[in-house]
């Protein structure tokens, strides 16, 4: 009896280990995560518009249909990334995601405070190489550190009414992201 209970206790403990390790391993093993879904649709280091979600198809679940969205799937291996997103009439935001869909930074047009949102995205190692004076003097230069070499930048522009969707899409069409080669 006691022996059986011991086996059961061992089973429960081991079950806990299995549970925790599968939860922690899942983001690495997921084949249908946002990044994987976008690999087929998007080239690397270029802003491309995402198809609007409809009842028949959606690139990712729970997309906000009131927004026009564009994505830049980045790879910082070749240098830092320069992102320029013009601000639309209503509301524009830029959100940065790691390879595993963790939103590590987000900024909206009001916080950026200008007609366009301009950002430099780099790895911590690339940031360390930026000359310090340049970092300080360029006060309007916003540098974001990416925790992962690859990831996603999603630019979203709100269409407050369906009639303004074309304007929101138009604003996003002028967004760019490009690699700045290492000097």
């Amino acid at each position, binding site marked *: 009896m006691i022996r059986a209970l011991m086996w059961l206790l061992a089973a429960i403990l081991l079950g806990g280990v299995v549970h925790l390790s599968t939860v922690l391993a899942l983001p690495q093993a997921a084949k249908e995560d946002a990044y994987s879904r976008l690999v087929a649709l998007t080239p690397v280091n270029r802003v491309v518009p995402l198809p609007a*979600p409809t009842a028949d198809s959606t690139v990712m679940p729970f997309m906000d249909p009131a927004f026009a969205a564009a994505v830049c799937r980045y790879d910082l291996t070749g240098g830092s990334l320069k992102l320029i997103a013009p601000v639309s009439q209503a509301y524009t935001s830029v959100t940065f995601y790691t390879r595993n869909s963790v939103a590590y930074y987000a900024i*909206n047009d009001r916080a950026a405070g200008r007609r366009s949102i301009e950002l430099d995205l780099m790895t911590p190692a690339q940031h360390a190489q930026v000359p310090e004076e340049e970092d300080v003097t360029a006060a309007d230069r916003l540098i974001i550190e990416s925790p992962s070499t690859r990831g996603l930048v999603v630019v979203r522009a709100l269409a407050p009414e369906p009639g303004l969707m074309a304007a929101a899409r138009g604003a996003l069409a002028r967004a760019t992201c490009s690699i700045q080669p290492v000097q």
Partner: protein
Amino acid sequence: MRLLFGSFFTLLIAAALGLGATWFTLTRGVAFGSLTVGAWTAWPKTGSVDIDPYARASIARSGELPTGVGDGISFYAHTDDAGQNFDGRCTFAISGMTPAARYWTVTLYDPEGRLVANTIDRHGFTSDEIVRDNDGRFSIAVAPLARPGNWLPTGGIEQFVLVWRLYDTPIGVATRTTKEGPMPAIVRKGCS
């Protein structure tokens, strides 16, 4: 023989228990640090680097991209204020206050996060397009059949989810009380 049987039994139970718990937590959407106001629940930390491992696994599995904290916050509702499940064959009235935000949107999805087909091609409202009364208040009828005013069609599906997104809002990780974030009330009006 007994040892072999015992260890085999243990491993079997352990695998079933561990995988079962993982499946359960991911399908039920277990995440820590939730902010619940009435029927609405948000997970502010899910939109930041402080995201917990359960939410991380859950979004990796579903494929969605969470709303970043610098962008806004998403509140999810699966039931009305009385705890009754959202049934697309029933009528629900949403009314009341919304927290301070530059813009908000409300969207109806099926449980998998897809939009629901309907005759007028409406999947939600934004704060700009909603029809309000003279006092600035609004009421949304979530119903399978056409309603006057703000009608959000359910398409008659068995179960739906509402997502209320606030953009450029002070509501976030630091929000504790429901006073800061008064969310609209949801009341079931009857079923067809």
